[in-house]
């Protein structure tokens, strides 16, 4: 794919230039890695039970990080201070039980590892951990154990990636419908451990709505319920201790998850609004009428322009002429200001007839807010943007551009204020810290709920002339998070807390709340075997 407009956009937005390039290392320098702390007894016992493992440096470094900016940077030009000492690959639930037993016996630390797509520093090894750190990689536990068509559930091993899960279910005509942006790599177990959210949650629900049954191996034994009743009143739901526990309590090994027949028909769509305010008002109305399509997202103007830069090379003169006509119609005839307008992308799913009906309903609401239908292509490209953005970040790094995204959830009445203030805060903090070019500071509303929305921020800047860009970046992200909290946003909608956002957790859930989590942790894992030190 050729993206002809990308270069111009990068130059215009960041003052980036293709002449200024940084190069990343071609391969890892093995001698830079910190020496392994080896617990021979543990290794011997693992060998004895025949579970595959590795002490190879590359295997260990690979599992020492997620996808935070500072981790990417460390990979490119530095090294982590602490990495796992050994990687183990259990192949089934029982293997995990044995490994956890051995870990307790030898007092080593386990960090479960799924797809490695964490963006909360959750996979980072605590620097001062003196015990052997075992990275428990679930990637070999990736089978669908059974499909129950009567109850529409599937029992799946937790190490399966999103992509594989959907592919394999599709063979039987089913899907889970859970599609986080990271689904190429992220795993079912990882979704449970972080309280993940999928793009199409409006139809299928978030992970907490999808899970029917869990099997979790902890140092105290196995946590699971004895039946698969669809709802229970049996005290606080113990699965809610697990969902969002971020690997601090145990390893999720098997999950029973709801499945649905693969939808007959899928249709993308998009709507152009004269400005962001109108767009948000429309989304709010859609949520009020509870008629949100599978996915509805609203990009602000800056992101719309970014999306435009990602437009592939046009096939013919005719299509480019059509594009011109469309642009003319919207900006000249309809009077939309190209520097104000914003776009909502839509995805409808279901029966063909119902989809078309649904589509009309949504477009009618949009029209009330000045929205104009803008075609399927724009919609589809909007969703593509989501998946390419992580790759684009790697590309940007080659040209002194660093960036990151972060998210929050916020009540409807504060959406506009929060978006404006956070974006402004980012711009201002950049200026104060000597960033020479104005940063990209953009947001979009990615999910709608009855009582609020999920908002995503993208933020990138050109770091030429700054000696410690990662530090500057972290300070700015810190400030942005403070701004989010001051404006009534949550600490996280679905990325989780990890170690990156730990410092705010107490203010978010009260000290008693922290104490409740603490006491669960103390009971389940008194020796801190699951010692990644997330959350608490």
């Amino acid at each position, binding site marked *: 794919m050729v993206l002809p407009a990308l270069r111009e956009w990068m130059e215009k937005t960041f003052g980036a230039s293709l002449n200024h390039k940084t190069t990343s290392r071609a391969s890892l320098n093995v001698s830079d890695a910190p020496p392994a702390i080896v617990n021979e007894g543990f290794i011997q016992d693992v060998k004895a039970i025949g579970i595959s493992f590795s002490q190879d440096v590359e295997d260990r470094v690979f599992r020492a990080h997620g996808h935070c900016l500072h981790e990417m940077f460390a990979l490119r030009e530095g090294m982590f201070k602490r990495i796992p000492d050994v990687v183990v690959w259990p192949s089934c639930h029982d293997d995990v039980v044995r490994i956890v037993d051995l870990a307790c016996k030898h007092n080593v630390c386990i960090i479960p590892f799924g797809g490695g797509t964490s963006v909360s520093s959750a996979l980072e090894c605590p620097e001062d951990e003196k015990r052997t750190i075992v990275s428990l990689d679930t990637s070999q536990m990736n089978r669908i154990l059974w499909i129950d068509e009567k109850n529409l559930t599937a029992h799946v091993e937790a190490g399966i990636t999103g992509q594989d899960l959907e592919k394999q279910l599709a063979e039987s005509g089913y899907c889970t419908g859970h599609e986080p942006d990271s689904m190429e790599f992220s795993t079912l177990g990882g979704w449970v451990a972080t309280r993940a959210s999928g793009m199409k949650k409006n139809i299928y629900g978030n992970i907490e709505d999808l899970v029917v049954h869990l099997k979790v191996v902890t140092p105290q034994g196995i946590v699971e319920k004895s039946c698969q009743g669809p709802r229970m009143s049996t005290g606080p739901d113990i699965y809610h201790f697990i969902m969002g526990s971020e690997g601090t309590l145990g390893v999720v090994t098997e999950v029973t998850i709801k499945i649905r027949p693969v939808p007959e028909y899928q249709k993308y769509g998009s709507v152009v609004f004269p400005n962001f305010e109108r767009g948000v008002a429309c989304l709010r109305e859609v949520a009020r009428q509870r008629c949100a399509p599978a996915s509805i997202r609203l990009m602000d103007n800056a992101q719309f322009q970014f999306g435009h830069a990602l437009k592939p090379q046009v096939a013919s003169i005719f299509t480019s002429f059509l594009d011109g006509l469309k642009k003319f119609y919207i900006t000249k005839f309809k009077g939309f200001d190209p520097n104000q307008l914003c776009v909502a992308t839509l995805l409808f799913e279901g029966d063909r007839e119902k989809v078309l009906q649904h589509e009309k309903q949504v477009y009618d609401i949009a029209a009330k807010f000045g929205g104009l239908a803008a075609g399927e292509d724009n919609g589809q490209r909007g969703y593509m943007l989501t998946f390419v953005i992580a790759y684009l970040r790697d590309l940007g790094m080659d040209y002194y551009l660093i960036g990151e995204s972060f998210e929050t959830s916020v009540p409807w009445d*504060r959406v506009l204020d929060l978006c404006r*203030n956070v974006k*402004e805060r980012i711009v201002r903090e950049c200026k104060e810290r000597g960033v020479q070019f104005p940063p990209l500071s953009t947001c979009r509303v990615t999910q709608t709920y009855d009582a609020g929305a999920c908002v995503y921020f993208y933020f990138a800047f050109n770091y030429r002339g700054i000696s410690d860009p990662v530090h500057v970046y972290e300070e700015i992200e810190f400030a942005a998070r403070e701004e989010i909290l*001051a404006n*009534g946003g949550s600490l996280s909608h679905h990325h989780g807390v990890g170690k990156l956002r730990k410092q705010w957790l107490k203010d978010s859930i009260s000290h008693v709340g922290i104490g409740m989590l603490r006491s669960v942790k103390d009971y389940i894992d008194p020796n801190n075997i699951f010692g990644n030190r997330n959350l608490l």
Partner: protein
Amino acid sequence: MRVVVLIYLWLIFAPLPLQLREFRSKKREVFEDVLEERRQSSDLRYAMKCFSPVIYRSLVPCKPSMLKAMVLESDQLQYVIKQISLESGEPLDAIQEQATEILDEMGQNLNLAAIRMFALTLSKIFKRLFQKVCVNEEGIQRLAQAIQEHPVVLLPSHRSYIDFLMMSYILYTYDLALPVIAAGMDFMGMKIVGELLRMSGAFFMRRTFRGNKLYWGVFAEYVKTMLRNGYAPVEFFVEGQRSRTCKTLTPKFGLLSVVMEPFFKGEVFDTYLVPVSISYERILEETLYAYELLGVPKPKESTSGLIKARKILNDDFGSIHIFFGKPMSLRSLASGRLNRSQYNLIPRHLSHRPSEEMQKFISDVAYKVELQQIANMVLSPGVLIAAILLQNFPSLDFSVLVDKTVWLKDLTEAFGGCLEWPDNMSSSKVVKASIELHSNILKLADGEVILFENKPNDPLTEEVVFAQAVTLLMCASYRNQLVNTYVRPALVVLACKMALSSSRGDVSRTFCFLRNLFSKEFIFFPGLKKRILKKEVSCCQNVI
């Protein structure tokens, strides 16, 4: 005794660095006389000039009538209306009607044609009344920048009705967005003039509306709507009313908390508070104030009264100095002090009684604003002369007066006061010119400067006593302008005299006691933080 005092001062404050020079030079910003150009070019052309002011960058342009509609439809006001209807049993429509009436009574009607008319007449009037109207240009530039960035609140000192006319006049002159001004209801009663003021951006508030929920609701929402939209800079007086004694009045918090709320709630990214100091060499209302202080009721504001007052046009009121202080970013002031997430759990249309922490913050900001106003006031020679004569009345030898004035001038400057003292004139000429300007209270005869004649043989009739009292009070008002410069050193010296022992602890304790005792009389930053105390008295130490 003096020596002892000095030693204690030195003992207490010796560790502080000598910052005097910096303190002095800081004030030497360049003033520009806006009347100078008026005297040379056509007022009409000036009034008709192309006016394309600097405005807030994310302003959505709207008319005063649209603004009113927004206020009436706002969730906040609708909620208040519903509440009142529920409590009183009156139908919603009736209350909505009342709200509309209140808003119509209150609302400004900013109109460029009226502004141009004001520009024309005010040019004529100001040129006759004043020798100079001096504005610090740097302040104007800072303000222009601030207006573009975030909503701005202008907070001038209040000594005269001229204050807000002058503010709008200056903003018009420098092509800045014209402010909407919270004015007292008194003006609205004036025929024609009231409407004219409205068209120049004044909106009117009742003096008291405690307990009137609807009025408060409409008023607060009106101010907040204008601020949120960046419609225009909002202007009001922290002191609440004109100070009759030239002493800065303790601040009022109501309106200030209203303009801060949009920031607290995150409805705006930031708000700039701009303290403005307006210093008059001679105040228009000086005699009226003296009468008021003696118990003669304030004449009601009326158009006929205004016309009658036109005789003052033949009088000379010297020069005015207007200092636009540094815009104070509310965000910076609040950073690290306030946790704005306290608003997270309450729906936004509910009014939220400020927490104790919040109230303390608002009060601190109010005092900060007033202290800034005070710091940027410009003192005229007349102030010094009045202070000296009050200690030497009824009369003083002219050459002695000149010597003492020069001495006081040096002392005042050493204490950080900012003086307007022409460098190119001899001291005696400066003093003479000042006496001439204040010829209504001062006379120079036979080499004697006379505050009031006191012939021993004359009977002390009521008129004589009254006249003397008026003169004395006017004089005292001028002297009062010095108070802010000297109040801290004075309290230190007093503390040294009063303290039980000469130990450092005793003296500072007495100082704190006195500062507390006079906290309603003079403007001190609330609380007794060590850092602030040290700063406050550092100037005394420097001088001594």
